């Protein structure tokens, strides 16, 4: 079920405007500067902040014709920016609170507890949790009620690398069934999860596009970042069990990527390639540790002062980014239409 919305509202001096559609499944990352109104938009969708307009989830009207469904009738799971746990209940009580009201089975609760690794904290008073622990409980609580929409406001900001990895996967699994609107400032999280990107500026959602397109845009907001990346679609090929490498087919080219388990050959795969991991070469080098060397064509070049350029490359019919120094650009003499080789370190794919 997709979420269709056209909302306007106000918070302080800031006018909030958003119009768009969250697809039936997948993660839409809501991106924008601090104070852009991201949290407020999430609260409006949840029915916690007054707003006007129209909204419906899979045909059921949440807002419109002067009526607004109260929050408790909206089947969504939400995480605020701060954990906001029920202070009179222990960890298990916090989860039970949702479980009872959303009528989910005890097995389901146990499953979510296992998935979020909360078993040892079950009987703990929430005031005694560490920052990361509290955030994990809040996430578990948001996921628990089998929601039909997930609203997550910087859900992993207090977690360590391992915890983050684990929960990213969990969120991705949820997003296989329902739409997820996800606020984050972290590009790693964005790259790991996002299918779509909504960009918010001064209260308004100013652009909405698939991740791939957003990333490859030379004039988008992401190109400036240290960790600007492109995302490409590929097809799974054969698996090399000895080196745990998975072959992927990118148009007619082969690419290797490290993988714990083999993918089913022929399945579509999404791979991410950071611009900084791509180097350019006029000839094909054969004795380097770089596994993936692909023939590309220069589409456009943009200066990124100081001293760097972002190169937009065409690989078959997809776009790739490479960030190189101005000096290299001079040496290579880049011009649109030029053919050369992109070297991509296998380990940079994930």
């Amino acid at each position, binding site marked *: 079920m997709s979420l269709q919305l056209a909302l306007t509202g106000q918070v302080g001096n800031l006018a909030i405007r958003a119009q768009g559609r969250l697809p039936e499944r997948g993660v839409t990352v809501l991106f924008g500067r601090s104070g852009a109104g991201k949290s407020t938009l999430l609260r409006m969708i*949840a*029915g*916690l902040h007054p707003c006007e307009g129209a909204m419906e989830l899979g045909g059921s009207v949440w807002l419109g014709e002067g009526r607004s469904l*109260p*929050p*408790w009738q*909206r089947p*969504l*799971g*939400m995480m*605020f920016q*701060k954990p*906001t*746990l*029920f*202070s*009179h209940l222990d960890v298990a009580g916090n989860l039970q*609170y*949702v479980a009872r*009201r*959303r009528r989910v089975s005890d097995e389901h609760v146990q499953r979510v507890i296992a998935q979020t690794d909360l078993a040892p904290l079950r009987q703990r*008073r929430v*005031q005694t949790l560490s920052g990361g622990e509290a955030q994990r409980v809040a996430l578990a*609580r948001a996921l628990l*009620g089998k929601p039909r929409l997930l609203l997550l406001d910087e859900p992993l900001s207090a977690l360590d690398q391992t915890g983050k990895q684990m929960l990213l996967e969990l969120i991705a699994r949820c997003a296989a069934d329902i739409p997820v609107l996800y606020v984050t400032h972290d590009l790693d999280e964005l790259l790991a999860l996002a299918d779509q990107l909504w960009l918010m500026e001064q209260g308004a959602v100013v652009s909405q596009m698939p991740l791939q397109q957003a990333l490859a845009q030379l004039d988008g907001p992401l190109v400036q970042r240290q960790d600007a990346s492109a995302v490409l679609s590929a097809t799974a090929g054969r698996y090399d069990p000895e080196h745990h490498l998975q072959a992927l087919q990118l148009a007619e080219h082969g690419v290797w990527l490290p993988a714990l388990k083999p993918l089913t050959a022929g399945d579509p795969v999404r791979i991410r390639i950071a611009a900084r991991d791509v180097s350019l070469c006029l000839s094909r080098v054969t004795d380097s540790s770089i596994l993936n060397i692909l023939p590309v064509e220069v589409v456009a070049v943009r200066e990124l002062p100081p001293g760097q350029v972002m190169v937009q490359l065409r690989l078959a019919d997809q776009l790739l980014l490479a960030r190189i120094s101005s000096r290299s650009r001079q040496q290579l003499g880049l011009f649109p239409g030029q053919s050369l080789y992109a070297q991509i370190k296998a380990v940079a794919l994930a």
Partner: protein
Amino acid sequence: MLSEGDWLALWVSIKLALVTTGLLLLVCSPLAWWLARRRLPGQALLEALLALPLVLPPSVLGFYLLLALGPQGPGGWLAGWLGLRSLAFSFTGLVIGSLIYSLPFVLQPLKNAFATLDRGQLEMASLAGARPLDRFFSLVLPQSRAGYAAAAMLGFAHTLGEFGVVLMIGGSLPGETRVASVALYEHVEAGDYANGHRLALVLVAMSVVMLWALFRWQRRPGLTP
């Protein structure tokens, strides 16, 4: 130890205090919630008016209540409607009087408890699927335990000790409106100190036990932030 009449009076007292406190908690919960959450223009005035019964001497308040509850007042009409002889000089009348007189003591602690509730948690409860009433019982009530304890204890103790209003609108009818405070007053007034001290002692001892239990409950671990 105590005369039969005094035991009976004690029993009426406790019944009155429990009924009054219980009703006040019921009545004041929504009222306090409304006062704590809304901000309407006349609200401060309304709160001041609700506190007014306090500033009148109890027996004077009792006098006005007697007029109101007597056959000529609105209470008489209400009594007829309820099929009662009169609200004055009945247990029901005592309850009404005590409700009015002890209301601010129950209202204020509840209002303050509600005002300090964490808004985010209330919202989270809504998102968890809790309707307002459910949310009240599952979140507001347990998190306002200290406020309820204070409200219950002030309301209970105050109703137990009050006798000016009670004497005036109750008329000290044994088993019906003769409460321990009136009985105690009569003992002391008549110079019967022996019985007075005994009744005072029992009243105080009983109250200590009840209040102590209440405070224990309030401080049960796992509450304070």
